[in-house]
């Protein structure tokens, strides 16, 4: 029984890992690549680590595997956020099919702060605070 669960988890993990690699290679711009890599790799390595926990079935191994999964779940989004921010400052191009980019021009390139509305040159949308 545990062998079947282990095998299933390993196959799922390997599948999503290959999807992550394929996505990183095929996607046309930085943000799409991050989109493909960050989640598929989290799910893939999470499934593989769970397979280890099920296979060995002892407390020590399970706590270590679960700790690693939690750590990955916490850190992957942060790494993606920081890389996306850095990419935006470097001026990475978005792919031509992008529908809309509402972040364009919102970063203050000198102070590295992020505004919530267009600066004063654009017509103000409304005076009411956005809820």
């Amino acid at each position, binding site marked *: 029984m545990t062998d079947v669960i282990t095998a299933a988890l390993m196959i799922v993990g390997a599948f999503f890992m290959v999807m992550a690699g394929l996505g990183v290679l095929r996607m046309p711009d930085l943000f799409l690549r991050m989109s493909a890599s960050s989640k598929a790799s989290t799910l893939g390595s999470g499934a593989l680590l769970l397979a280890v926990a099920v296979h060995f079935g002892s407390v020590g191994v399970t706590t270590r595997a679960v700790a690693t999964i939690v750590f990955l779940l916490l850190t992957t*989004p942060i790494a993606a956020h920081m890389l996306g921010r850095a990419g935006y400052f470097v001026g990475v191009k978005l792919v031509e099919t992008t529908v809309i980019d509402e972040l364009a021009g919102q970063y203050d390139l000198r102070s590295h702060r992020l505004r919530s509305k267009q600066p004063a040159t654009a017509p103000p949308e409304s005076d009411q605070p956005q809820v």
Partner: protein
Amino acid sequence: MNTLLLNTLLALSWIALTGTFTPANLLFGFVLGYGLLAFTQRLLPPSRYFTMVPRVIAFVLLFLAELIQANLRVAFSVLSPRLDLRPAVVAIPLSVRSDPAITLLANLITLTPGTLYLDVSEDRQVMYVHTIHVHDLEQFRQGIKNGFERRVKELLE
């Protein structure tokens, strides 16, 4: 939080009584302790524990279902010979304000495939999210606000 401590204590005493220290047995001890505490709820000082635990479990299950389903969708779109993409960077007005709530929301958005959290403005009014496939911007905004944001708000604020 005291009830959580009590529950842990009950789980540990279950372990001590049965003498097998395995993850499955620990989990069973927790479930047993929770049942016992829920049964004797009226004798204990009032606590949010009994409303929070089902909520947290429902939240985790919803998230896992979303994660797997959406990952499969992205896998199909990666495998299709012609990439059919309509990416967009969308500004979503925020109604959660506290640091933990925003952090949890951002992590959830990044971990669900198709969407990637980019940044939050300094005044915490707007969150910028990148998405792979968008049909209707307003519908997408409402989807995030009514789905994850509402649940995060229920959980943390």
